[in-house]
């Protein structure tokens, strides 16, 4: 319970700052008191909001997609939520063309999501699977690991197409 509260508080804190500027390496640097001698700056991971570019991990034809709207959530979308996005980059011959407005389900998010047993999961990147209005995936394959949070959100089809379930 305490862990849940702590994570919520930290999420709120991050979102407030995330709205202004996502890269908080300078803030962390001063608070640590160490000069950034190591190459990796510690980033604060936040929600998926407007203008967030996500990777498309199915074979629908799109490659990169920019979020226009997170349906549900004032601060943005998280792991397992649906978003409205615009296709920014696509394969030349695919079902989806550049500039099209599509729906997508977030299957990997760099921001950690709390699980019901109290632990937290996070992935390496932000990835999305394109779906239609009914929630059925447009593509026929899904690449990379997907979380089993999708089962609760009733995206069973994506889970069956997935190679790994994290």
């Amino acid at each position: 319970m305490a862990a849940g509260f702590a994570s919520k508080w930290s999420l709120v804190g991050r979102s407030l700052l995330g709205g202004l500027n996502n890269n908080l390496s300078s803030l962390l640097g001063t608070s640590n008191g160490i000069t950034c001698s190591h190459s990796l700056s510690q980033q604060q991971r936040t929600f998926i909001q407007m203008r967030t570019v996500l990777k498309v991990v199915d074979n629908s034809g799109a490659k990169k997609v920019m979020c226009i709207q997170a349906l549900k959530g004032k601060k943005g979308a998280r792991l397992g939520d649906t978003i409205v996005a615009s296709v920014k980059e696509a394969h030349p011959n695919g079902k989806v063309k550049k500039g099209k407005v599509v729906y997508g389900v977030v299957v990997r998010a760099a921001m950690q999501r709390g699980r019901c047993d109290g632990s937290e999961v996070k992935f390496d990147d932000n990835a999305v699977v394109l779906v239609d209005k009914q929630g059925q995936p447009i593509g026929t394959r899904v690449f990379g690991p997907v979380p089993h949070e999708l089962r609760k959100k009733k995206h069973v089809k994506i889970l069956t197409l997935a190679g790994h379930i994290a």
Partner: protein
Amino acid sequence: MRIEKCWFCSSTIYPGHGIQFVRNDAKIFRFCRSKCHKNFKMKRNPRKVKWTKAYRRLHGKDMTQDSTFEFERKRNRPERYDRNVTENTLKAIKTIDKVRSRREAKHIERRKKGKKAQQMREAVKELEQSISLVKAPSVLKEDPSLTLPKIKVKVSQALAENQPMEE
């Protein structure tokens, strides 16, 4: 429910603790606390970080091979619930833990005790064999006080060898 091991420090992760990081090749890294997570993000090798179990095992500071470790192997087959089996397992866990911690303590004690006896033996042997590098053997024969006095060493073979040599 499963009790996991931290990828970095090899400590146990109880439910509700820690962060799980899933890499894009579907490898899952579990961390017990942010200390281990941050070290991982810095790309540090746990085998080189002194306080981790991986370092200690690699450098022989902690016990590596023991029969008590066999009990903790990961089993992926779910067991059918049997009350007696569960009861006995819980009792066994306690005793195995006690035995293992006792053996680990012994290992560390043995390591700390040092190798005084062995070093003495080696020193004696070296002195007898290589004293000629320091003093000429003719000088030694004239003045036997320059040789090593007879110390009661447990290795009786060395003494038996020495006596015919010295005379």
